[in-house]
């Protein structure tokens, strides 16, 4: 199982309707999902969050959670980078005295590397013959290529011929 932590968190808890269930046992959750498979490993991809002025304890909650879920021997946590910076952006609609063309500086938080790490581990594990079925907990279109192959979206479409490399 490959869990895209931030994608999952936002879909289920932050924007979704399961906010009461954040203290989730990821191994048990994966074991109970249909179809019932023999889950040999759970890879959880996330990044350490940084305290926000509006939520200075967010990193403490995450740290507690990472320690709790790490008690499952089959689970490994893979940490990417969490960045925060300010960047200019135009307003989408007028606000106060500002017209819709006005530029303002906005806080932007980004999580870097998790999707690439997830795709890399999934391929590497596949090459090592560590699984028969890879299950990805995410609906992030960035993972389309590593999962489905580049020609799945090419103009030719379908499952065309693969590329062979001269050696």
């Amino acid at each position: 199982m490959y869990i895209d932590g931030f994608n999952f968190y936002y879909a289920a808890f932050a924007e979704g309707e399961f906010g009461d269930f954040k203290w989730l046992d990821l191994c048990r959750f994966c074991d109970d999902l249909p179809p019932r498979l023999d889950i040999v490993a759970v890879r959880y991809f996330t990044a350490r969050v940084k305290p926000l002025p509006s939520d200075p304890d967010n990193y403490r909650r995450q740290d507690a959670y990472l320690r709790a879920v790490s008690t499952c021997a089959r689970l490994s946590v893979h940490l990417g980078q969490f960045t925060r910076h300010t960047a200019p952006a135009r307003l989408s609609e007028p606000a106060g005295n500002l017209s819709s063309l006005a530029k303002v500086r906005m806080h932007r938080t980004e999580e870097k590397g998790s999707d690439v790490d997830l795709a890399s581990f999934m391929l590497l594990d596949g090459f090592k013959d560590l699984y028969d079925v890879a299950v990805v907990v995410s609906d992030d279109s960035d993972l389309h290529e590593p999962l489905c192959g580049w020609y799945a979206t090419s103009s030719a479409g379908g499952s065309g011929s693969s590329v062979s490399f001269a050696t």
Partner: protein
Amino acid sequence: MVRDELGRRVGIVRVVRYLKNPRTGRREQRGSVFRDKVDFIKDVRRHHFANAQLRSEVQLKNGKSVACPEAWRSPINDHPSV
């Protein structure tokens, strides 16, 4: 690549999300970007989360314990079956 180059089955587990259709005004399930591209797509629902909660206090391997943060506590974490 995992499917086509390595020949492995690939499945997607996703949280069901609903969007309001502006034309009909009804809530409709959002489609998956992986539809028709993977071997299976499973939607997770409330009972999958409810049945897989950690104990409110988890014993660590070093003998210490870690408690569910207060902000995350819900009645289900204190249920005796958890």
